[in-house]
């Protein structure tokens, strides 16, 4: 029953009846709340969120996102909507200038959207990601993202496919102009104007004009910028298009900086800041990270530190410790064992640092001694840990010294550590009293 009800909203959206769809979604949400039907409320909120994004009502989308995240704690039938969540979250992070997090969320949205053949999400995520990529990697890297956005826009069923194609082309226009491909940009600008003229797509029309205005600024035509910027700003603020308003404020502030007008710079900076603060409060919603864990940034940081540590010119080693148990250990038991291991390693005659947890029962360290000096002290530390805990566990380690083992990258050393673990385990089974070292 519920999918049919929320699909009704989708049908209205596909017919371009956005206001009716919004009313229908709001009615469903109220009904669901009254009947305490979490799944229905969830489905209706997600559809309203999609609608809000369609109409660029970021505030409404952010509100529904927050509520949906709370509902997620009590319902696990939400798989198809995850892409929408990540896209919504990414847009909010983009607006608050948290680019790295926004990019990660857009990538999640693409993967999940593709999994569920939600081409609209894939297209919009690629389009927005293209503009972010431009700021970090330049035109050549960014343009293929915009082209891919167009590809997926065209996969979207009609009539929405034209709308998403326009959005992908707007991303292309942005990239072409900022990448100084002016002739192509000019052609695309004219085509977009012609396409948009007979429609009532005010966000898209405004977006195109603002991109073109930015171009005028780049060409130092400051008086041309000021001629139209006020009208555009009023329109953006009126329709609560926060992202477009922010871009306009940026252009205006930069223009008045060039014209040396500190009073107006202050006025626009204050107005801009109030929008940023409001969005910032909406964007930082912690449960997203808790519910769908991202690749831990600490792992990446560790990899970078480890890579330097294992570089050919320095002497370094990687130590992988694994705790094996036939019984399931409680989190507390495992934690205590790890703690004792840390304490034992601190007393070693060589440095063992930068520990990270690797998978469930593995610890990865950086060490600074050749294997011939490290092996016996390490085994003693492990034996001391085992005798401190009366548990049915085995602790094995793999150790790779960069120069001794001629492995100079993190991945090479890690692979070799795993191989040593594998053969140590085999040796322990084959010769229980004399493990391979």
């Amino acid at each position, binding site marked *: 029953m519920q999918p049919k009800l929320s699909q009704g909203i989708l049908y209205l959206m596909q017919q371009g009846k956005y206001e009716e769809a919004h009313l229908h979604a709001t009615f469903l949400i109220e009904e669901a709340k009254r009947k305490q039907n979490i799944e229905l409320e969830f489905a209706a909120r997600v559809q309203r969120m999609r609608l809000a994004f369609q109409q660029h009502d970021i505030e409404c989308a952010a509100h529904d996102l927050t509520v949906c995240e709370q509902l997620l704690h009590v319902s696990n039938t939400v798989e198809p909507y995850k892409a929408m969540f990540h896209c919504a979250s990414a847009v909010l992070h983009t607006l608050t200038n948290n680019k790295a997090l926004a990019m990660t969320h857009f990538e999640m949205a693409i993967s999940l959207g593709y999994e569920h053949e939600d081409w609209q999400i894939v297209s919009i995520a690629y389009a927005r990601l293209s503009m972010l990529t431009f700021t970090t990697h330049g035109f050549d890297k960014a343009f293929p993202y915009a082209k891919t956005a167009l590809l997926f826009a065209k996969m979207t069923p009609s009539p929405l496919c034209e709308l998403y194609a326009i959005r992908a082309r707007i991303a292309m226009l942005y990239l072409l102009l900022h990448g100084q491909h002016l002739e192509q940009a000019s052609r695309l600008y004219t085509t977009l104007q012609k396409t948009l003229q007979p429609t009532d797509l005010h966000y898209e029309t405004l977006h195109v004009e603002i991109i073109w205005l930015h171009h005028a600024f780049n060409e130092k035509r400051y008086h041309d910028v000021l001629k139209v910027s006020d009208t555009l700003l009023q329109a953006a603020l009126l329709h609560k298009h926060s992202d477009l308003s922010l871009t306009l404020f940026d252009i205006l502030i930069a223009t008045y900086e060039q014209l040396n007008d500190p009073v107006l710079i202050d006025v626009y900076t204050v107005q801009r800041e109030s929008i940023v603060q409001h969005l910032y409060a909406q964007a930082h919603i912690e449960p997203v990270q808790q519910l769908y864990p991202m690749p831990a940034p600490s792992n990446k940081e560790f990899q970078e530190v480890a890579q330097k540590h294992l570089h050919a010119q320095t002497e370094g080693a990687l130590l992988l410790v694994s705790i094996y148990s036939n019984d399931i250990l409680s989190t507390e038991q495992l934690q205590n064992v790890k703690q004792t291991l840390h304490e034992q390693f601190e007393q070693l005659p060589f440095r063992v640092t930068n520990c990270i947890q690797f998978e469930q029962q593995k610890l990865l360290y950086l060490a600074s001694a050749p294997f011939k000096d490290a092996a016996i002290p390490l085994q003693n530390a492990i034996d001391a840990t085992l005798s401190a805990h009366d548990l049915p566990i085995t602790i094995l380690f793999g150790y790779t010294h960069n120069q001794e083992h001629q492995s100079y990258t993190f991945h090479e050393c*890690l692979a070799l550590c795993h191989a040593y673990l594998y053969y140590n385990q*085999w040796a322990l089974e084959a010769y229980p009293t004399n493990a391979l070292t």
Partner: protein
Amino acid sequence: MNEYMTTVFDKQMHLYLVHNTHTHLDEHISSCQHYFSLLRKSEQQHLHAYALINDLWHFYYYDDEQLFFEPNNTMYYAIRAAILHLFTTSDTILKIKTWVQHSIEFSLIAAIDLVNVYADLYTTRILPAIQQTKYATLIQQFRGIDTKILFSERFKIYIEHPREFTEMQAYIVKLLTKNTILHEKHVQQTFTKYAERMKKMYVVKEEIFS
């Protein structure tokens, strides 16, 4: 640059060798970076998923006459070799090859999507069976690691062959073959859906970019 794909090339984890070509796919990884986001999130940090993408990319891109199997790697990566055999002998997949062949980007998209297809089949049909066996930990252990290292000369002083590992490979290959036969209808339906998706993408791509 996708570091996993680069590792696959650097470590020579390929199952195919290519003869008579001026096109080297590794030179295109950087310009195709944006397509890797299409891969299932669960596979995005899984080295062997990228190795499979690489093999399928080669399969789709090159003419059959240009491709030869790398015999040692076929032994080291027996599971991947079995997947490749199962997939590349399917009529549906062979039909897709005719659309995507010689297109660097489209053959990569088709390869990534086919790895997604495999990942879904693996999660629903294979993984539950593996989790009941003694091999579960071993598989987990080598998810992100190039397993060729186990066959390295340095270990031959202890033992000629990583026996448990090769037994695990044989077990999974059998499981794959058995499940493909057992769930033939489901696998075929999945392939058909994949083919429809590729066809649609192919038509759109031709329409907008040619």
